Structures are given as structure tokens and as C-alpha cells.
């Protein structure tokens, strides 16, 4: 029975989505973190998702070398977290304690509207994976009652 692998798949989805929610939280929390140079300024962080292929996990199944896109797949993984290269906001605030000699401070390139949309999307996807896991659980429980009167 491969019902057990549904737990792994849905679990990987939940991990990925909660990591995405984590970066969103970090981005929103740091949306107004000003600094005096471009190097020190916080940049919006985004996770990069990619699909896990099952053939990489148990190669040679069935005696045939499987192509990369064969097999039902085994969930999602986070390849890494990248920082956005969008331009930083430069504001003229000469009285700011972090202002440079020209009176400018740098604000992060976080787009709060985009982050909110991302937050909604990731929480919905998380919910969806929870639903999948619940359904797989009830299917498994039903299997366990097989043959009972």
C-alpha cells in the first residue's frame, strides 16, 4: 500500500508552505527596517520550490531506468531561499539616525501588498495539504477495518 507516501507528500507540502509563510512574516516584519547603506539593508526573501521525483529516491524500480518525469512523484521541496534584486527604496530623511552623509536612508525592497497576497496563498495551500492528509488518514483507518464484522 502506498497510502503511507501520501503522508510524506502532504507533509512535504506543509513544510514548504510554512517555510513560505515564515519568509513572508520575516519580510513584513522587516518592511520598515532602514539602514544607511545598500549592503546592510534587508532584502525581500523568497523560497524556491521544486518537485521531488520519486525515481531519484528509489532508482531502478521495475528494472527499467526511469525518466525524470516518470513515477507519481514524492512531494515538494524548498531548493533554497533567494533575496529579491528589486531596487531598494531611497528616502531623503536627514534627521533619521541611520541617514548617510547626504541625508538618505535605505528601506527594504519589500512589497507589502505582494507579501499579503503571498501569505493568503500559502495559508490556503497549507490548509489544502492538511485536508489531503486527513483524507489519507481516514482511508488508512478504513483499510484497517478490512474483514471486521
Amino acid at each position, binding site marked *: *500500500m*502506498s*497510502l503511507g*507516501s*501520501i503522508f510524506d*507528500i*502532504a507533509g*512535504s*507540502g506543509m513544510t*514548504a*508552505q510554512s517555510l*513560505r509563510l515564515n519568509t513572508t512574516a520575516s519580510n513584513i516584519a522587516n518592511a520598515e527596517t532602514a539602514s544607511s547603506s545598500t549592503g546592510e539593508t534587508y532584502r525581500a526573501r523568497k523560497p524556491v*520550490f*521544486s*518537485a521531488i521525483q520519486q525515481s531519484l529516491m528509489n532508482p531502478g*524500480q*521495475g*528494472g*527499467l531506468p*526511469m525518466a525524470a*518525469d*516518470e*513515477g*507519481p*512523484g*514524492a*512531494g*515538494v521541496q524548498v531548493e533554497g531561499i533567494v533575496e529579491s534584486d528589486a531596487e531598494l527604496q531611497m528616502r531623503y530623511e536627514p534627521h533619521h539616525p541611520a541617514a548617510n552623509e547626504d541625508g538618505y536612508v535605505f528601506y527594504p525592497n519589500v512589497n507589502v501588498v505582494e507579501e499579503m497576497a503571498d501569505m493568503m*496563498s*500559502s495559508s*490556503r*495551500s497549507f490548509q*489544502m*495539504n492538511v*485536508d*489531503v492528509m486527513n*483524507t*489519507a488518514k*481516514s*482511508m488508512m483507518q*478504513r*483499510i484497517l*477495518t*478490512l*474483514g471486521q*464484522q
Partner: protein
Amino acid sequence: MAITFDSALGIHQHAVEARVKRAEVLANNLANADTPGFKARDLDFQAMMQKAQEQVSGFQMDKTHDAHMDTSLSASDSDLMYRVPHQPSVDGNTVDAQQEQTRFMRNAMDFQASFQFLNSKFSGLTKALKGE
């Protein structure tokens, strides 16, 4: 003719297996709902059942050599196909989360139906054994 579980249970055990396999594929689609470039997939349930039917009725392919391909239900992924998307997306992802979720729920219900049949087969066998 010998009494075997295979002939007593008929197609239903294969149907349950196929349902579980399809649930796995659909769960993978849902987990990758936000993965760029991911292509949604599904199983051809009819083809799988046809194969199982052949197996049950005894017309399956025989393996007489080590190098022969396995044509059984579990080892073959040839029924896995890509879904045709209804609308294009910027990141190349073809998962429609709502549709996949609907299919997943429906698949779970169909699983329950197949399971019910299988369970009835078992209770029938038990009744026959007890002579009630």
C-alpha cells in the same frame, strides 16, 4: 479449481489499489500547487482497470525471461498522463487546486465504495466458512 483469494475477491482488490495510487498522484499535484513549472498529472483509471481485468480473467502477459518488462498493475507508470490546462499561467504550473481537490475527494469516495465491496467479499467468505 483451487479456491484462492485472487478468484474470490475479483476485481475489487485491484480497484482499491488503483484508487490508492491515484490518491498518491493527486496528493502530489496538490503539494506542488505552487511549484513553478510543475505539470499536473493523473492516472488513466480505465486503462488500469482494464489491465486488472485481464489479470483477473487470466489473459495477462507471462514473464518467461528476466529481461521481460513487468506489465503488472503496480510497477507500470505508463498510465500516468499530463493534464491539459484550462488556462495558461505565468510560471508554467498547470495545477488547478480546486479541481484537483474535487478529484481527490471524489477519489476518496470511490475508494470507500471499492472498499465496501471488498469488505462484503470478506464477510461473505466468513459466512461461508462458518456455515451460517
